[in-house]
């Protein structure tokens, strides 16, 4: 495969009003030489690196703090990964976890945009022994 071809995942944060369908139509209308495929979390783009980058920049303008992206190793529709061909998707659980966190990251980006100083987060603590004992008793009395 041509090394200049890039595959990119575009994620829409759960809080966004955008839909994968709207982004796919928008990408088609841009007329860049990229292939676009709708997914449950956003879209997958594939094409020459420059065209994909240009498309991503345009798509990001639709909702800058709620659109996230990363590249993908496997090409679009690869038989080893594509669900239509019963491919496995071992990384999807991690993507799902991070997708759920995107609404939190969005708040961080808004904070940066406004130039606010973030509140000091509460330090995480270990569970007290007594609480752990109670949990154990509940599960195995």
């Amino acid at each position, binding site marked *: 495969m041509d090394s200049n071809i890039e595959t990119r995942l575009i994620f829409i944060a759960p809080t966004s009003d955008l839909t994968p369908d709207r982004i796919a139509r928008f990408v088609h209308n841009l007329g860049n030489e990229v292939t676009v495929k709708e997914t449950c979390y956003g879209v997958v783009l594939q094409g020459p690196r420059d065209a994909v980058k240009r498309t991503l920049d345009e798509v990001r303008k639709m909702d800058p703090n709620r659109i996230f992206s990363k590249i993908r190793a496997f090409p679009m529709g690869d038989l080893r990964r594509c669900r239509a061909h019963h491919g496995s998707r071992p990384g999807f659980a991690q993507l799902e976890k991070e997708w759920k966190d995107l609404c939190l990251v969005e708040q961080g980006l808004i904070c940066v945009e406004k130039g606010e100083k973030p509140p000091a987060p509460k330090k*995480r603590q270990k569970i007290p022994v007594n609480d752990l004992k109670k949990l154990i008793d509940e599960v195995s009395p």
Partner: protein
Amino acid sequence: MKIFIMPPNSLILFDLVERFGHEPLSLMKALRDRVTSNEIEAPPLNVTVDDVKLGLKYAGIEIPSGIRGRLAIYGPLIDQAEAAIFMEDAPYSFGCVGCQRTNELAKLLVRKRKVPILSLDYPSNEDEAKDMVVRVKEFLEGLK
């Protein structure tokens, strides 16, 4: 600058690093060349026999081959890294970064290189997320 991210397939870190004007060194890019070559045909295998040998540079012979195979991919990325961002408490039990020992060893290799490192936790609420994004931005801007 080239920033090594941990977990190396993290969407959040990849996006933030790119958004703030740096190049993330990610697992996806490293795997891209491998999965598009003809040598690897069956999932979940993402490394070749040669990769496992290459991994000897980063992990000893007594280390399990799974870790060595992973380090064969992470290692060249770590060698290129000019800075690194670690996100702790990753959902390691999920996905293809399911090997905590590899992650520990990879972090050790990065620390040995004495490059600037930012260690963070996965955010679990808004305040932590705000703090995380601001720290990532300040860290990346400080590198320029």
